[in-house]
């Protein structure tokens, strides 16, 4: 085993709960505690607790941090009100995606405003290295890596808000989707945001590392009768796939631009200049060469990442980026990039390790939760 792997503050808890631990983005992380399908279903019907402490949390303090982030993100940050959270991309000069991130604008109890960037674990150091040379242009801004000092817990599922409402002194239902606040919970400051990566309603909490176990166990206990379950990375992946959400390293990488990835909504190109904006404007004007599509392979056999996508004549037109069984829908699902001229094709073939399987096009997401009335 690689001894240089990092662990999260919840590592001992995962092991005592019998989690199967795997190396992931430099961390030892739980892939599953029992059954991936069971954990997936707990998130869709009750609520799931995810340890996402491996994701990077980078804080920006000082005047002008919004301008630094404006310069680096495809989404405008300077008009993000306190309490707002925004999804955006960080691109290189060619428009390739360095990472997809969430940026929050927050205010401490002593009224200090700051921005917090949550980045993918696999890109954490790369993003710090990317931002560092830009800092001298914004001398009043300080960047601090908060990842090791804090833990991050996602509570996701239809019962997440109701249970947390009973447990917290703060009413999380007051937050709208993509809003965040700092609040005292369990007598310690917690950043609470109404965000997630599962297609369900829920919260993501950032707490001090030493508080992680107490917060985690409190929430699990409060939701025990409702079926709250600790859920590993295995089900996190099937959940986000059903929700049609891109995953860095699969749907996104430095040779894919956000326009092709179907993330134009997260690129504010009008009247703005940021790193990569010229390239993205050119791609938008010319039209992307490939587009991200959803497909349902016929039969039970899942198409996996790397399988070729063919047109009905057998010509290669693309590649599967994520694929597997959908526990909620009961059949396989797949996301793929295909050449733009095939964006509206109704049917494809997927070469699943030497055997061609017919696949029907379907709009993303595969699964959409029913909104509460």
């Amino acid at each position, binding site marked *: 085993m690689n001894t240089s792997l990092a662990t999260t503050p919840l590592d001992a808890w995962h092991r005592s709960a019998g989690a199967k631990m795997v190396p992931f983005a430099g961390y030892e992380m739980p*892939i*599953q505690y029992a*059954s*991936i*399908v069971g954990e997936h279903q707990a998130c869709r019907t009750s609520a799931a607790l995810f340890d996402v402490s491996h994701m990077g949390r980078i804080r920006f303090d000082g005047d002008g941090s919004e301008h630094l982030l404006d310069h680096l993100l495809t989404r405008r940050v300077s008009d993000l009100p306190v309490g707002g959270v925004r999804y955006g991309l960080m691109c290189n000069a060619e428009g390739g995606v360095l990472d997809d991130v969430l940026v929050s604008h927050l205010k401490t109890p002593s009224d200090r405003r700051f921005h917090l960037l949550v980045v993918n674990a696999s890109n954490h150091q790369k993003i710090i290295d990317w931002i560092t040379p830009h800092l001298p242009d914004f001398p009043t801004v300080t960047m601090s890596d908060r990842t090791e000092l804090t833990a991050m817990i996602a509570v996701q599922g239809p019962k997440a808000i109701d249970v947390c409402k009973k447990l917290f002194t703060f009413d999380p239902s007051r937050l709208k989707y993509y809003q965040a606040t700092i609040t005292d919970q369990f007598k310690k400051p917690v950043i609470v945001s109404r965000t997630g990566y599962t297609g369900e309603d829920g919260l993501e909490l950032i707490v001090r590392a030493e508080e992680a176990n107490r917060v985690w166990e409190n929430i699990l206990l409060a939701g025990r009768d409702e079926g709250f379950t600790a859920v590993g990375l*295995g089900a996190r*992946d*099937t959940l986000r796939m059903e929700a049609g959400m891109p995953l860095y390293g699969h749907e996104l990488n430095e040779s894919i631009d956000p326009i092709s990835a179907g993330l134009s909504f997260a690129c504010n190109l009008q009247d703005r200049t940021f790193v990569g904006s010229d390239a993205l404007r050119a791609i938008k004007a010319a039209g992307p060469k490939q587009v991200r599509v959803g497909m349902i392979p016929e039969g*039970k*056999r*899942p198409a*996996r990442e790397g399988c070729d996508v063919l047109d009905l004549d057998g010509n290669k037109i693309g590649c599967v980026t994520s694929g*597997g*069984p959908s*526990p909620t829908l009961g059949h396989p699902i797949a996301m793929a990039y295909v050449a733009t001229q095939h964006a509206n094709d109704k049917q494809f073939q997927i070469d699943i*390790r030497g055997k061609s399987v017919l696949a029907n096009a379907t709009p993303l997401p595969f699964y959409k939760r029913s909104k509460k009335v």
Partner: protein
Amino acid sequence: MPRDPENLLYAESHEWCDVVEEGGAKIATIGISAFAIEQLNDLVYMDLPEVGKAVTAGEEFGEVESVKAVSPLYSPITGEVVEVHSELPDNLDQLNDDPYDFGWILKVKVSDDSNLSSLMDAAAYKKQCAASG
């Protein structure tokens, strides 16, 4: 039906094998062990060969897929497939409960059993599982 798991032979790659004499021929029934099924977890798909296909000891004869991954199935014996358990791929959840009876995958008419001695008995296989589990 296969014998008790204690009396079966096991491959390093977690298939079990039960060789019996039937009408002058040696017939091997092949499946995957309870340990492997537990490790694979959440099986969703199994790909079986057709009757009549030749299989070779140590070489792939099919695939089993869990939610997360594809795992090849290796034949513990050399011969010709004479029967496949066609109901199994549609009832993979039952493999968990009954890997050594309902869970049989293939019957192979053995043409060469020279590798049988390299398969493990139950005690040796148990040791391997304990070391990797």
